[in-house]
């Protein structure tokens, strides 16, 4: 009997912790201020529109208030019922009085979780659209595995997934989280998967480029030595940061002018870890390591705003660089 009581008390404590975590609206405001300081140098949109974004979050999450109240009431009822169990001392009463609040709590928690994720998606769509009218957030979409394969990234790729896509149909800009997994078999012949790469990939269309250029970090090895030549440029910093391979040296020099190389050097210096750049027949790709960018499922509410701010900062940086590079290359080809 004592054991049962202890187990119920433990479950109750866990439930209170869960409810408390989902209910902390004052904590969210403190997290947001922290984000603002972190992004002070590189996200002008967030800084200028902080009140608007705060309002969007508050309005959307207000719709979750009734569910949160229901969960809190269920927890209170559970504890009142727990105390009454010792007074009433009836088996059926115990099961009903403890079971019902737990069931209601479970259903409410599930409902809250599902609606919370939907809310975050709505918020992300609204904030991104507000940030740039041409951008659209599509959570369950991303790059195709065939397009990814064309980029010839070095990791072994048995499973490719891409989601949380942000797209601009006017210039073919596409930004998405990607995960690459490879399969291996253990001694018993069972297959397992290991994550080879987890990051973000961005793409933009550029004009009149009919060649392939691969740029990788200093450890990048050319896996296609037959068809591609290594090229060194006159920019020493660029040569130190990137190894360049191409199937057409003259076109590579035409495209990788000093302005373009400077942009790539700048984004590399601003990024932690290696970045991979591909220019493949009218498309520019940039791939880099990043956390779960716009993914809502791994986040709790407290982290939503900070994560969204960081993700938009990263998106802005990548988009700015790609637009600059596109402008340089397109102007050169037009003029």
């Amino acid at each position, binding site marked *: 009997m004592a054991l049962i009581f202890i187990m119920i008390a433990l479950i109750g404590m866990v439930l209170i912790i869960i409810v408390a975590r989902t209910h902390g609206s004052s904590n969210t405001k403190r997290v947001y201020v922290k984000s603002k300081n972190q992004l002070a140098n590189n996200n002008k949109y967030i800084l200028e529109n902080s009140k608007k974004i705060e309002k969007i979050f508050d309005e959307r999450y207000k719709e979750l208030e009734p569910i949160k109240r229901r969960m809190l009431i269920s927890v209170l009822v559970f504890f009142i019922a727990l105390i009454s169990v010792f007074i009433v001392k009836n088996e059926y009463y115990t099961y009903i009085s403890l079971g019902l609040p737990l069931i209601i709590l479970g259903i409410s928690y599930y409902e809250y979780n599902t609606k919370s994720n939907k809310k975050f998606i709505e918020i992300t769509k609204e904030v991104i659209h507000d940030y740039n009218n041409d951008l659209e957030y599509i959570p369950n979409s991303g790059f195709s595995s065939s397009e990814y394969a064309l980029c010839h990234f070095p990791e072994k790729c048995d499973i490719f997934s891409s989601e949380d896509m942000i797209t601009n149909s006017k210039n073919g800009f596409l930004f998405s989280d990607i995960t690459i997994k490879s399969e291996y078999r253990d001694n018993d012949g069972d297959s397992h998967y290991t994550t080879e790469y987890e990051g973000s990939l961005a793409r933009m269309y550029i004009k009149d480029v009919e060649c392939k250029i691969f740029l990788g970090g200093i450890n990048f090895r050319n896996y296609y030595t037959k068809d591609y030549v290594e090229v060194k440029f*006159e920019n020493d910093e660029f040569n130190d940061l990137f190894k360049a391979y191409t199937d057409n*040296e*003259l*076109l590579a*020099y*035409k495209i990788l002018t000093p302005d373009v190389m400077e942009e790539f050097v700048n984004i590399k210096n601003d990024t932690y870890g290696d970045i991979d750049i591909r220019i493949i027949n009218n498309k520019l790709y940039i791939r880099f390591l990043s956390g779960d960018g716009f993914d809502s499922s791994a986040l709790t509410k407290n982290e939503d705003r900070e994560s969204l701010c960081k993700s938009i900062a990263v998106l802005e940086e990548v988009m700015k660089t790609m637009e600059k590079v596109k402008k340089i290359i397109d102007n*050169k*080809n*037009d*003029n």
Partner: protein
Amino acid sequence: MDGKILIIIGVVILVILIVFVSIYNVLVEKRKKIDRNNALVDIYLKKRFDLIPNLVEVCKGYSKHEKETLEKVAELRSSFNSNPTKETTEELNKVYSSLIAIAESYPEIKASDNYLKLQKELTNVENEISASRRIYINSITSYNNVVMRFPSSIIASMFGFKKHNLPKYDYSDVKVEFK
């Protein structure tokens, strides 16, 4: 003991020979690359040169006032065809930028389809010339680095590999910007 010493000496000599030959081959390859890349620059310069008559045709129909320039172009071309010299080529290249200036100053020419097509081709050629020059300069720099560094400098001086001078381009009469 004597045998072992001989083997060691033999191996050392073999290694030195291999290094020697490798460096020599690298020098030869880099020198050939310079010549190849120089030829590439000439190819694109010739391509631009071959577009000059098209430019003359476009300008001729619209501009009666620039007769003198157009006549000079015709004269230089026939002189070049009969006796191609470096001086004539340089004169023609200078006149090329004058032709562009003529075309840019007449709105009727600028708006014509022929000129727009030609402009695109000329832009492309200019970019190709610029890229091929960069490749050429890089190949000279790479070759000079090998010639001047130790120990390849020893082998370079033994076999007459000398430092290559970087070309001097007079951009004022060659690079043209379209407005």
